[in-house]
């Protein structure tokens, strides 16, 4: 089976984004293998095989970059290259990324590690990597022209430094940054504490917020866009194809969210309150933590919040900017609410027989109607739940808390079945038996779980 890089090499990615031809001619002897990923599915966490133990992170719709040990140094090989990323089923983006994917693989290491990065540039222009939030020598900071010359196409540079602190960090180019980040070049960098018991959690999720402006019917992002993005993504993936956050009841859960878009994102999770425990500056002292149900992720920042997954169910997690839970949409659409289009529809159908009137009662019909769209586009609002259209897109997922989920099991358990009396229902004139009680205490019927 061909991996994605081979596909790119063979077919030049359907004429997509040129990759540097020079690298293939340089010797790569002695370099660590540059692992590639050819799927956008969430990969199982990588348990450390050497060195200090830690609880690995799970990158939603992503993966962790393998490393090799070389005389006590953890060696990674990142390849900056054109990639094809499946943003959702039926929507492919031609991006720039690392090792076959955008966003790039997550780098995991442990506080105190010495790390060495071989960075090979297979882009048509120079690049660099800035290690966002890490404390390191100035010359390793990856600002092209300032820290070191840009990595020319076809060349491999080495970054090497000690990880002096644990926490949640990012990496991204600092060379032609506007273009390279708009093209999807970014990844997350998690440094686990040296003490495995410090800030230990059972499940540690990673979400990188990013955004693209890809016109419906096109494949390449518009790199000059500053604010009017139309695809709001987590790890270069959009709902309904962002994987759920699967959690076992009672787990201590951490969600690390980074933001490399050009706006802030209030990330809101239902069903729980939580505390922000980490920023890209480091761990938040317990005394400074306060409860939240929404955490605003600033531009160019990271936040990690934690909660104990006591409450069973399917809980929405999303950006609270409502346009960010929509996919490609026009902003020049008049509000059609209350506009009777019956007569008009007849008139327009004489000219365009397939015209469908929309918007008279609101836009919910968008979530219901399955209408033909331009190529390589998915509907503005979509996603079906057990009870109908979820009418969400973009930055949205579901935290699925269930009983009896295995420690390394992140597979989708299906929809939660709400027990009787725990789901809203239609009033038909009388309260059903389960709702009639004399005690102020809520009668809880035995809980049920369902898988699949």
């Amino acid at each position, binding site marked *: 089976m061909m991996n994605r890089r081979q596909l790119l090499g063979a077919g030049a990615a359907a004429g997509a984004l040129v990759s540097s031809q020079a690298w293939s001619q340089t010797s790569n002897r002695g370099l660590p293998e540059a692992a590639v990923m050819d799927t956008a599915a969430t990969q199982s966490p990588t348990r450390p095989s050497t060195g200090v133990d830690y609880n690995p992170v799970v990158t939603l719709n992503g993966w962790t970059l393998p490393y090799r040990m070389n005389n006590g140094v953890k060696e990674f090989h990142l390849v900056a290259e054109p990639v094809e990323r499946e943003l959702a089923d039926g929507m492919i983006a031609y991006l720039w990324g690392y090792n076959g994917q955008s966003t790039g693989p997550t780098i995991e290491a442990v506080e105190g590690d010495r790390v060495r990065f071989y960075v090979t540039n297979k882009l048509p222009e120079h690049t660099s990597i800035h290690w966002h939030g890490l404390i390191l020598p100035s010359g390793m900071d990856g600002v092209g022209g300032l820290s070191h010359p840009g990595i020319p196409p076809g060349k491999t540079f080495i970054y090497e430094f000690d990880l002096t602190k644990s926490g949640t960090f990012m990496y991204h180019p600092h060379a032609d940054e506007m273009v390279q980040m708009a093209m999807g070049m970014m990844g997350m960098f998690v440094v686990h504490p040296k003490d495995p018991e410090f800030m230990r959690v059972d499940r540690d999720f990673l979400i990188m917020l990013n955004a693209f402006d890809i016109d419906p019917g096109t494949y390449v992002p518009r790199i000059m866009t500053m604010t009017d993005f139309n695809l709001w993504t987590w790890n270069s993936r959009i709902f309904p194809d962002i994987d759920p956050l699967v959690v076992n009841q009672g787990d201590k859960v951490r969600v690390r969210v980074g933001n490399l878009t050009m706006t802030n994102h209030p990330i809101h999770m239902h069903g729980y309150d939580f505390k922000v425990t980490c920023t890209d500056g480091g761990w938040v002292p317990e005394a400074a933590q306060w409860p939240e149900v929404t955490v605003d992720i600033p531009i160019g920042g990271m936040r990690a919040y934690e909660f104990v997954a006591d409450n069973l169910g399917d809980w929405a997690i999303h950006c609270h900017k409502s346009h960010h839970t929509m996919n490609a949409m*026009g902003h020049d659409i008049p509000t059609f609410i209350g*506009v009777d289009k019956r007569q008009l529809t007849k008139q327009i159908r*004489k000219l365009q027989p397939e*015209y469908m009137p929309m918007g008279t009662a609101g836009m919910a019909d968008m979530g219901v109607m399955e209408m*033909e769209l331009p190529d390589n586009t998915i509907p*503005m609002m979509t996603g079906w739940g057990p009870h109908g259209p979820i009418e969400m897109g973009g930055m949205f997922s579901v935290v699925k808390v269930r009983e009896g989920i295995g420690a390394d099991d992140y597979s989708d358990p299906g929809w939660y079945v709400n027990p009787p009396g725990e789901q809203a229902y239609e009033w038909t004139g009388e309260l059903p038996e389960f709702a009639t009680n004399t005690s102020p205490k809520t009668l809880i019927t035995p809980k049920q779980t369902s898988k699949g």
Partner: protein
Amino acid sequence: MSVRKWPALIVTPLILAACATEIPGKYTDPKAGFLEVSSQTSAAIGKRTVLAQTQAENVALNKQVHGMVYRKTISADTAVQAALLNNKGLQASYAAVGISGAEVWQQSLLKNPVVSIGLFGIGAPELGVYRALESTIAFNLLDAATRKQRKALASAQFQQAQMNAVNETLMLANQTRQAWINAVSAFETVSYLRQASDAAAAGSELAAKLGQTGALNKAGQAREFAFNAELAGQLAKARLNATLAKEELTRLMGLWGTDVNYFVPDALPALPTSLRRVSSIEATALANRVDLKVAKIGLEAQAKAFGLTDQTRLVTDLELIAGFESERENDGGDTTTDTRPQLELEFAIPIFDNGEARMKKAELSYMQAANVLAERAVNVRSEARSAEAAYHASYQIARHYRDVVVPLRGTIEEEALLSYNGMITNTFELLLDVRQKLGSSLEASNAKRDFWLAQANVKAAIYGGGSGAAGGGEGMAIAAGGGAGH
């Protein structure tokens, strides 16, 4: 004192009259020269022409034309045939052929002698009874001497009249065909503009409804209303254009009364699937162009006139005057009358005017005619090439619009629908793309019209009767505007 005068030389015109030849029937025939016209034109355009001279013939023709057009949707061929049968201007030019035929006949006859009588002495009392009576019969000898040339000239002019009639027939046929194409095209334009107007009306209604719900401000509404109103104006103009274009066709067909109650199709015929190369169009045109024949005949006529001038350069205005002079004298109460035959020869002595100027004039006239012919031949060649170029190019252009531009606009419209479906674009933008597709269809229709006009011009370039201009005029375009949703 009686006056006597007897023409003594009356014999002269009789002698001269003996020279008169038989006059061919083609000049004396009631439909002199028409057969020639008819056969030449039907060879070129494959249509019948008639010369109606009697009321009965007119009635029969009217009936025939009525049957062809009344309450019928007429084809281009029917229109041309009706025009050839019914256009009164054409009948007038056919009559001109007859007139010039009669002129030949006329020139074939000798001029009647002129009798002149002069009485002198009246009102001169001092002369008393003296009277001189002069009576002559003047017969223009030159008339007889030049009769042959004049007859030849008239006959050339007759031929020219015939060719003119042929030319006018072809011109009428071509004009009628073009008028039919223009009329049909104008109605096709109306139908596209009507659809575009429908799209604008839908936009306008949508804007009004959005105004009612409070989703569109007055400026946005007014933009759609204005656009709709502008398109309504354009549609009205297109309808007027269509009416006028049809009226032009009506005029050419010579229709009036109830006969104007006819229809043209709503759309021009589709383009042919392929075009045959017109082989050696220049040679064909040179061999067939009627206006070229007219110019040739003109040259011949000039040549004949040149010969005439050559003969008469010394004897212009020569007149032989014959008669009596009778002189009465009162000689002491005795009146004597002396009558003498008289023969006078009057001519100009070429001292001052030796005819060289006339010769020069004749020569230059000949050169003029020769150059006109040469120029005409050059133009005919060029027109033939132009017509052929326009024919093939306009076909390619029309096909390009039909096969490339319109389908692309169709793709845009389909994609507009998909974008609309995805709530990426709004209804106004969808309607705009619908209109733009109609605009392209209209351009395609204009290109198709240009092709059919160019095709008509090929015939005109080969046989004559065309304007010589290739290509068609500018068609209407659908106005841009609207899009209030922004």
